[in-house]
């Protein structure tokens, strides 16, 4: 299969005035003999919504894990807000990570503590806030994802969609400047899904949060993505705003964009 590679980087589109929140610079990553990311370069502008699309198993989650430094590239570099996270360890790495909120595809809630304590965890670790303030803030975060009744519940007792939302609340706990979310709408009903999109959109518009969203949900991608990228077989198959992807010469990209599949 031949792929047309279209590159519209953030810096090329908007000049150099918008600083890069995230930059992947010729990142290549293999697991065993399988090359999952093959020389990927992309820029995410500060305060924008960046959507990663692609079929299952094309390395979207792996790309996201590079940004938070959970996976290191075999070659190439990853920058977050000016710091080369792919070269950091120890306290400097932790300092960069404190600016990032991360929603795992599996939600990855700490299952030995309650939902509320999961959201409180980053606050307890990284802020001097007193107990009452933490409690208030946790309630506010839970409320924003519609889980304000579930503070005391244990993660094992939640439904899949609830786990996802609890994970999102935890990712937002410290009001990060950069929010990375892996399939936020997977397992959600259309109404809740729309509410989550509105929540993310609100963060971007009101607080200037940079969003990097992996999703299979095209309506969400349209709503959240100022810029979209489609990965295919380890490479970038298409990149640009919605209109560019819709008019791509690549039938796969067009087919992807035309689907109304949500979830």
């Amino acid at each position, binding site marked *: 299969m031949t792929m047309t590679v279209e590159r519209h980087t953030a810096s090329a589109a908007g000049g150099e005035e918008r600083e890069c929140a995230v930059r992947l610079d010729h990142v290549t990553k293999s697991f065993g003999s399988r090359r999952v990311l093959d020389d990927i370069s992309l820029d995410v502008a500060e305060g924008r919504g960046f959507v990663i699309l692609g079929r299952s198993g094309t390395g979207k989650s792996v790309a996201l*894990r590079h940004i*938070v*430094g*959970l996976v290191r590239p075999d070659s190439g570099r990853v920058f977050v807000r000016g710091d080369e996270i792919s070269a950091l360890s120890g306290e400097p*790495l*932790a*300092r960069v*990570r*404190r600016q*990032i909120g*991360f929603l*795992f595809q*599996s939600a*990855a*809630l*700490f*299952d030995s503590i309650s939902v509320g304590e999961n959201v409180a*965890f*980053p606050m307890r*670790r*990284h802020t001097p806030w007193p107990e009452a303030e933490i409690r208030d803030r946790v309630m506010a975060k839970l409320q924003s994802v519609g889980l304000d009744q579930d503070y005391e519940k244990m993660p094992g007792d939640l439904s899949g969609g609830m786990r996802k939302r609890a994970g999102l609340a*935890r990712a937002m706990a410290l009001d990060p400047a950069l929010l990375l979310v892996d399939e936020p709408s997977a397992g959600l009903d259309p109404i809740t899904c729309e509410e989550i999109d509105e929540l993310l959109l609100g963060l971007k518009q009101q607080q200037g949060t940079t969003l990097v969203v992996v999703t299979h949900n095209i309506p969400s991608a349209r709503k959240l993505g100022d810029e979209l990228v489609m990965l295919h077989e380890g490479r970038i198959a298409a990149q640009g705003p919605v209109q560019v992807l819709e008019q791509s010469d690549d039938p796969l990209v067009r087919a992807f964009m035309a689907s109304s599949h949500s979830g």
Partner: protein
Amino acid sequence: MLELARSRAATHLASVGEFAVFAGNAARQSLVPPFELQETVRQLYELGLRSAPLIAASGLAVGVVLSMHTRASLERFGAESMIPAGLAMALVRETGPLTAGLLLSGRIGAGIGAELGAMRVTEQIDALEASAVDAFRYLVVTRVVACVIAVPILTTIMNFAGILGGFIAERAATGMSLGLYFERAFSLINATDYVPATMKTMVFGFLIATVSSFLGFNTTSGTEGVGRASTRAVVLSSISIIVANVVLVRLIFFLFPEAAG
């Protein structure tokens, strides 16, 4: 065939090397701040205090059996009055530490292997890292410190429970009074019997925690992997304790010649 065996051996050797680095880091980081005090205390409770009933009950049973054996052998020499002292000596010097060590490799090793393994495969360890928490320090170092503190204390509990078990057997056999029993039991024991033998269980604690954390931390392939990590944690920490014990007893005899007397 030879090729396969060689590559197998190389993999095992590489794991041993990785383990050495892992254990070395755990030892070093347990001595330098920042200390995860709250989490360490929680582990002391989970791994230590909650093992106490198992240890106490087993100690009693071991004491009863040991006393029956001691009676059987000492009666032949008409030395029944030595039963309490002989029993206490056997317990404090070797039976208590080794039995406690093996029981705890079972309980604590399986627990750590399964818990950390599950956290690995459900991405909770990654989630800790992504939340800017040093997962090794938070999960491994706290457990290692808790075990190094708890195992000697649990061993001491085992010794006391064993001596008490011995009393129960003795009482049933001869109706000996508690006062006389304890007087006789402790008549021969001194610090060189208790201190080195109990200190060596700090090494047992270190081995149990590092071996099982290593296996849990490096778990792969889902639920099946978690089960395997848990089983291997028990097997390998038990073996490592038995082997380390040989070396440690040799070392104690070398450093405290009176302990051999």
